[in-house]
């Protein structure tokens, strides 16, 4: 059965979602979702083990050989992303019960879990596939469910946020379809490996660069790369806490993965960077994203929105890593995929716990929660350290590799800028810490106490992951280096 793991990874949450929609009670649906997510995590671990041991896995769906049928193809890169996505799912699902029971109507819960599982299935499906059209189909599975989850937020602005997300997401998806269509017109194939083989023959036409442009813009819309990020802040701010934590840690990461896949596997590094001069586009965009979004984050009153802008800045770091187009740079980018997922998910879960108790996530409303909810805020502070990049946390590891990559290319100013932007993270995290620890709790909120264990445990599981992979980074960096080499086609 082990040879079927790639498809089971996607099919199990998909089928579980279909069942979940019919379960009458929210609690039962929740248990079902948690079990599914944990099985998914187990499968992704097994797959990563298989890839580490035996190299690339290929799975032919329907038994039809590629390029006639659809192929799943897993190398180090997507095995790692699978682990990130299913790992985050396995942590967020247990958290979801109490948090969602507070934030959405009880009668909606089973269908909400169905949407959650479908979103998980869609994201995993994007990650494993080796077929560009299949990628679009699963992209839509994950997108439609994301729009739904965002729209379920309590505030009415969740609706407009979901609508804008839907419009921007659909434009992005349509751009991807146009790009795929142009490539298909030139090569007659949809399989990524086959495309990679056939694109060089037609690379000198005008069509292939245009296809490249449409795909890049389409995917950048999905990953909210500056300046195509406008849909993201409100979507993250107003969706239910559990959905924010899940989407922030997975959806944009998978989009970054897709970008990597197209740049390095489908078009090839030499086309993307030597012909299209992509580094001169990505480097400034990444830097501007880091700077401007960190700056905007500093002035936010709502902690969720602040973290959303911080996510946009972090996407800038990943893009910066990609723009170096070197093994070290890509390692930094891929490591930051993992690290930022762990950091941001932990922070959003901590904020979700605060919301569970005090019903607000405004900085002013969080005055005094440091003493009332010491474990929750402790987690927030440690997550904040990791976001800043303090040594012994995962945040430090990714910054370290990023700076190494910058120095390797001789771009000293970029290395300096990375350090400076870390200080901006200090400022916005400090604003929350100051309010939580150094301001008295307002009257009428004496009853606020520590978040329940069901919320604390998932949060702390991620914090421990932050510290563990910050101290012993051999596993994550080992996989990331292998992944970077695989993408660049450099032998290990």
């Amino acid at each position: 059965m082990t040879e079927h793991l790639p498809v089971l990874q996607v099919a199990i949450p998909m089928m579980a979602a279909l069942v979940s929609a019919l379960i009458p009670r929210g609690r039962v649906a929740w248990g079902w979702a948690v079990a599914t997510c944990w099985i998914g995590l187990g499968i992704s671990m097994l797959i990563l083990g298989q890839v580490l041991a035996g190299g690339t896995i290929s799975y032919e769906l329907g038994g039809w050989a590629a390029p006639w049928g659809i192929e799943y193809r897993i190398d180090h890169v997507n095995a790692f992303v699978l682990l990130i996505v299913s790992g985050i799912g396995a942590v967020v699902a247990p958290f979801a019960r109490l948090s969602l029971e507070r934030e959405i109507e009880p009668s909606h819960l089973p269908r909400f879990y169905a949407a959650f599982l479908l979103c998980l299935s869609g994201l995993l499906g994007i990650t494993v596939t080796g077929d560009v059209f299949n990628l679009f189909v699963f992209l839509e599975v994950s997108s439609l469910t994301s729009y739904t989850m965002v729209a379920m937020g309590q505030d009415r602005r969740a609706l407009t946020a979901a609508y804008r997300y839907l419009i921007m997401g659909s434009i992005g998806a349509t751009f991807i379809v146009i790009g795929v269509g142009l490539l298909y017109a030139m090569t007659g194939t949809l399989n990524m490996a086959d495309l990679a083989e056939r694109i060089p023959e037609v690379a000198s036409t005008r069509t292939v660069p245009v296809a490249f442009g449409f795909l890049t813009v389409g995917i950048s819309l999905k990953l909210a790369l500056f300046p195509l990020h406008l849909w993201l802040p409100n979507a993250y701010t107003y969706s239910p806490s559990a959905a924010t934590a899940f989407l922030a840690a997975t959806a944009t990461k998978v989009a970054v993965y897709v970008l990597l896949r197209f740049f390095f596997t489908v078009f090839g590094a030499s086309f993307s960077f030597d012909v299209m001069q992509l580094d001169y586009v990505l480097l400034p965009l990444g830097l501007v994203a880091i700077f401007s979004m960190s700056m905007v984050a500093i002035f936010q009153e709502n902690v969720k929105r602040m973290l959303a802008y911080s996510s946009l800045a972090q996407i800038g770091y990943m893009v910066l890593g990609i723009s170096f187009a070197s093994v070290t740079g890509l390692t930094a980018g891929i490591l930051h995929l993992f690290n930022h997922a762990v950091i941001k998910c932990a922070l959003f879960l901590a904020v979700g716990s605060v919301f569970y108790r005090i019903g607000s996530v405004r900085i002013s409303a969080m005055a005094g929660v440091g003493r009332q909810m010491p474990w929750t805020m402790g987690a927030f502070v440690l997550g904040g350290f990791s976001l800043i990049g303090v040594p012994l946390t995962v945040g430090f590891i990714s910054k370290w590799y990023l700076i190494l990559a910058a120095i390797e290319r001789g771009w000293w100013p970029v290395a300096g800028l990375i350090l400076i932007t870390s200080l901006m993270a200090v400022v916005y995290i400090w604003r929350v810490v100051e309010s939580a620890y150094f301001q008295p709790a307002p009257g009428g909120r004496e009853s606020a106490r520590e978040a329940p264990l069901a919320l604390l445990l998932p949060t702390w599981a991620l914090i421990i992951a932050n510290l563990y992979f910050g101290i012993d980074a051999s596993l994550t960096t080992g996989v990331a280096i292998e992944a970077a080499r695989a993408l660049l086609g450099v032998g290990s």
Partner: protein
Amino acid sequence: MSRNVILRIATKVLCPNIFLFALYVQFHGDYGPGGGFQAGVIMAAGFVLYALVYGLERTQGVFPPLWGHVSMASGAFLYAGVGVVTLLLGGNFLDYNALAVDHHDGQHWGIFTVELGVLLTVFGAMISIFYAFAGRRGLD
């Protein structure tokens, strides 16, 4: 409910024919254009017509919303289920050749079943979506 007798009788006559046509589209898919998706939409259109003429309540009496929800989930489940069955029979996911000794038979059975799955999901989803929109008005 519409007071127009002609409209009501026309609907009574049309609806069974619409369903018949849907089934024709469904099972003719191997030979000509058509298949589960188109059939599902056409079948849902039959109920929409019925609801427009006879009202939402009466339609929901004939076809309760819950059936739509079940149909929507079970169709996709049937589709994925075919995949699981082929796994258990030793093939790859959705490899219909594993379903029968002769691969033509296997493919036929596989295609027939997944098209049925598509029909159920499309029909169920379209009905559910229509009910959701139409029912929203009643809540005013």
